């Protein structure tokens, strides 16, 4: 799958509080560091495999180890309405 942000949803730096937040219509949430690492790679062009590869390079970890976590993370963000597929 190729995740992108749902309409009206975006990731934004919250400088005053030293964190990143996901802003959506009438709500916001603070992603944990793992979700944040994934969300920063969501651009509507990278598919799931490309995100896994980028994270593997970034954290110097084997892709097989990361893949399961990324899949679960994307599923969670999808069910929360923050992301869409395609």
């Amino acid at each position: 799958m190729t995740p992108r942000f749902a309409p009206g949803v975006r990731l934004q730096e919250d400088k005053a509080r030293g964190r990143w937040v996901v802003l959506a219509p009438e709500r916001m949430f603070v992603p944990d560091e793992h979700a944040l690492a994934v969300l920063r790679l969501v651009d509507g062009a990278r598919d799931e495999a490309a995100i896994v590869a980028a994270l593997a390079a970034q954290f110097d970890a084997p892709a097989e180890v990361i893949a399961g976590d990324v899949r679960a993370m994307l599923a969670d963000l999808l069910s929360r309405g923050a992301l869409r597929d395609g």
Partner: protein
Amino acid sequence: MVEPPLALLAEVTHRCPLRCPYCSNPVELARASEELSTDEWTRVFAEAAALGCLQVHLSGGEPTARRDFPQLAAAARRAGLYVNLITAGVALVPAMLDDVDHVQLSVQDSEEAGAERIGGMRGAQARKRAAAALVRGRGLPLTLNAVVHRQNLHHLPELIALALEWGASRIEVAHVQYYGWALANRAALLPTRAMLDEATRIVDAARLAHAGRLAIDYVVPDYHASRPKACMGGWARRFLAVSPTGRILPCHAAETLPMDFPNVRDTTLRAAWEGHPAFARFRGTAWMPAPCAGCEHAERDWGGCRCQAFALTGDLHATDPACALSAHHGLLADAVAEAGTDGFRPRAFS
């Protein structure tokens, strides 16, 4: 250290082609000549973002009644704010949406005759329908904002159906809150307990029926409650409002209070938020008299709404009469008993 606010409510004008009898604007409406300029709002948005606001609600009146509306939205986005447009949608054109992230569109009733009677504008419903199509056509998320009361509650199922038909992903079903114009028209607007219970039942059923397709936010009127709402999440804790003439307020309704508020023409948002006595006055729990002082709910509801307390008791420090522990709680039951007229006074410039 004072926690920074999360959102700015920018009431860019009081002008509006509609005349809703529950309008949250003050009874004394500000005129166009007194409004902040484009440059002044641009500075306000930058200051809000620097202070820690993540979102701006561009509201009014009707914010798009300002000729510089597209510039205002652009300035808010440039400042890094998430831009939420709160509009009646009767004069929306594509350029107004270029720098908007989300649109909240008000509807006064599900059908034309009722909508025209309540909103006071001929032909508004068709324009709103077109506005919804425009918003959705741009791929922007849409929330329908349905203010409900005695005159339109019987159409609640149709209002929810309208949200689906117009492509909204959420609907806010908000019972009128009674300050300003709404307080003046309370007898025509306040629902009975039975009407409220029926509305709550309809909302619960619709939430189940449309789960995953339509989110429903529900704001209940506290006239039938035994605890007040945590108004604005507590005085000067999360929200900051700026009026059309630049008054910096902890909430848009606070203009009704006999207090001295700072103005963006004389000071910065940060100085007001962190240091002005009006902001410090009801922040936290130290100001509270009995029965709020020491109450276990004090940090949950913050003693309720200052505007409602003042409007109903004449005392700024009073416990919100919506609380069953307030000595004035009976006032609400009296108002409910007296409600039931059909006539109301549309909002107007005095």
